């Protein structure tokens, strides 16, 4: 990894990229400690560096596969696809951006949702795919999340969401903003019915997602050192015209300020959430 990438950060990286630097992509350099890691080993530890514990980006599907009981999953609403209601065009057409993102990620949009079991107990879970247009929330993301929440509500089972997103998707204009209201309304119904929602905030979670479903967990969980906030650090720096303190808007900062309940290492996520959910659902202790 060169200095430029180091500055830009691990945002767009994923388990399938990183080619070119090292032959056959079998080796990956850790963004945290710089150690050269054997890729299958890194993947086996859920993209967490076995040496320093740095959490690299993980693909939505890999995340969900590692979270649910093996073989228990069924994908939800996989056919939903974005349209282009505004015929949006900047330097590129939104239509073309969709095609590009779909090709690059193999996903129809930036949220994957599934139902399955966690240590034998049924639940729904969804994960943002950050490499799909920065994990931005447009109509499809909002709709899939809402449907997952409605399913969880109907079956009185928990919902877990792993977010990794820059916020609302500009290219769908006010449709995107309204997804904040829609997803929050669905969560209000879950609250009324006593179906738990756990929000796992992973690196990075900002903007309209953080300011809606992201912060609305009955339990809010952060992954170590994840950037979590409303405004991005660059916008804040431009507004207040000063350099931000070290660690500002990181999980540990949010924990200190009372915004999240706990920080959980990705490798322990499954055990921890299973235990918390079993207690909330008044189920026997998970195995």
């Amino acid at each position: 990894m060169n200095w430029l990438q180091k500055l830009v950060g691990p945002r767009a990286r994923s388990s399938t990229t990183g080619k070119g630097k090292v032959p056959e992509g079998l080796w990956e350099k850790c963004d945290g400690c710089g150690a050269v890691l054997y890729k299958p080993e890194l993947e086996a530890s859920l993209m967490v560096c076995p040496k320093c514990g740095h959490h690299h980006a993980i693909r939505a599907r890999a995340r969900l596969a590692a979270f649910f009981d093996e073989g228990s999953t069924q994908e939800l609403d996989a056919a939903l696809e974005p349209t282009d209601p505004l015929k949006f065009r900047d330097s590129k057409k939104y239509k073309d951006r969709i095609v590009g993102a779909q090709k690059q990620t193999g996903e129809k949009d930036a949220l994957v949702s599934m139902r399955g079991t966690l240590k034998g107990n049924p639940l729904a879970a969804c994960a943002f795919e950050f490499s799909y247009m920065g994990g931005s929330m447009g109509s499809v993301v909002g709709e899939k999340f809402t449907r997952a929440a409605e399913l969880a509500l109907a079956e009185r089972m928990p919902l877990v969401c792993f977010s990794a997103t820059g916020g609302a998707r500009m290219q769908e204009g006010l449709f995107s903003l309204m997804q904040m209201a829609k997803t929050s309304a669905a969560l209000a119904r879950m609250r009324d019915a006593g179906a738990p929602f756990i929000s796992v905030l992973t690196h990075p979670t900002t903007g309209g997602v953080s300011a809606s479903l992201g912060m609305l967990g009955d339990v809010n969980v952060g992954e170590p050192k994840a950037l979590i906030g409303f405004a991005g650090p660059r916008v804040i720096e431009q507004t207040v015209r000063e350099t931000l303190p070290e660690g500002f808007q990181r999980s540990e900062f949010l924990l200190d300020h009372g915004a999240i309940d706990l920080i959980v290492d990705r490798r322990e996520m499954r055990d921890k959430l299973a235990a918390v959910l079993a207690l909330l659902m008044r189920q026997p202790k998970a195995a």
Partner: protein
Amino acid sequence: MNPNFLDFEQPIAELDAKIQELRHASRGQSFNIEDEIATLQDKLKTKTAEIFRNLTPWQVAQLSRHPARPYTLDYVGVICEEFHELAGDRAYADDAAIVGGLGRIAGRSVMIIGHQKGRDTKSKIRRNFGMPRPEGYRKALRLMQMAERFRLPILTFIDTPGAYPGVGAEERGQSEAIARNLLEMARLEVPIVCTVVGEGGSGGALAIGVGDRTNMLEYSTYSVITPEGCASILWKTAERAKDAAEALGMTAPRLLELGLVDKVVREPFGGAHRNPRGMAVRLKAVLLNQLDELGTLQIPALLDKRYQRLRSYGAFSGG
């Protein structure tokens, strides 16, 4: 250049100034200039109509932040027979970027919440240019929940560039404050009528914008991001804000067409700032009408309709 007129309003400003001048010069004189003034006034009318007929989205965005545009308290002053402002979030501070309080409109009790901008430098700073911090949203929620306890309908007035992006705001949970309002407003057991009167800037606007009706004044805007913000991200320069305003579809008629707002309230000739009173009177009639409509619904039906409305927002294919 008259600073109280926008670039594209300058021809109006010039004619306006000419009329004033003539009036002034003719005072106490024997000759009659009424004919000339009448001609100029006709011209002013034609020119204004011409300019306002073909406004671009970027021009509308500028109108929505016009320095002379009426703000929440200006509306309250005309719409309400009485108003008692209530302050504070009971946890940290009072945020002057959001005002709220009890009002009486056509004899009925209502709770009023709105963004508030300042007119002069001092009040602009005090109001933080209408950009709330978490305590503003928490005050709004406190007042809305009070309204629920006393079964008062809620009227909100939206006019903000966005929630404030500052260090303190982040420390005190800007995201959580906005998110919680979205969740709670979806289930408040009283009618909520929201009106975008100026800038509807993103999550900072939506945080007092979830309800049973969404109105927009004709020259207000409602958007997921400011045109400047969008331009600096997608075009890499804020100077392309004009293009972003076009692309974002942020004007009232466009959003009505897309089914994202319920009603566009016509503005007086030349915009709300040319006749703030006329605008407020017009809006009052709309609000009373909507309160009547919503007042006939039982609470479960009201909440169900609200949910179905929010539920319907989205454009996608594949089921």
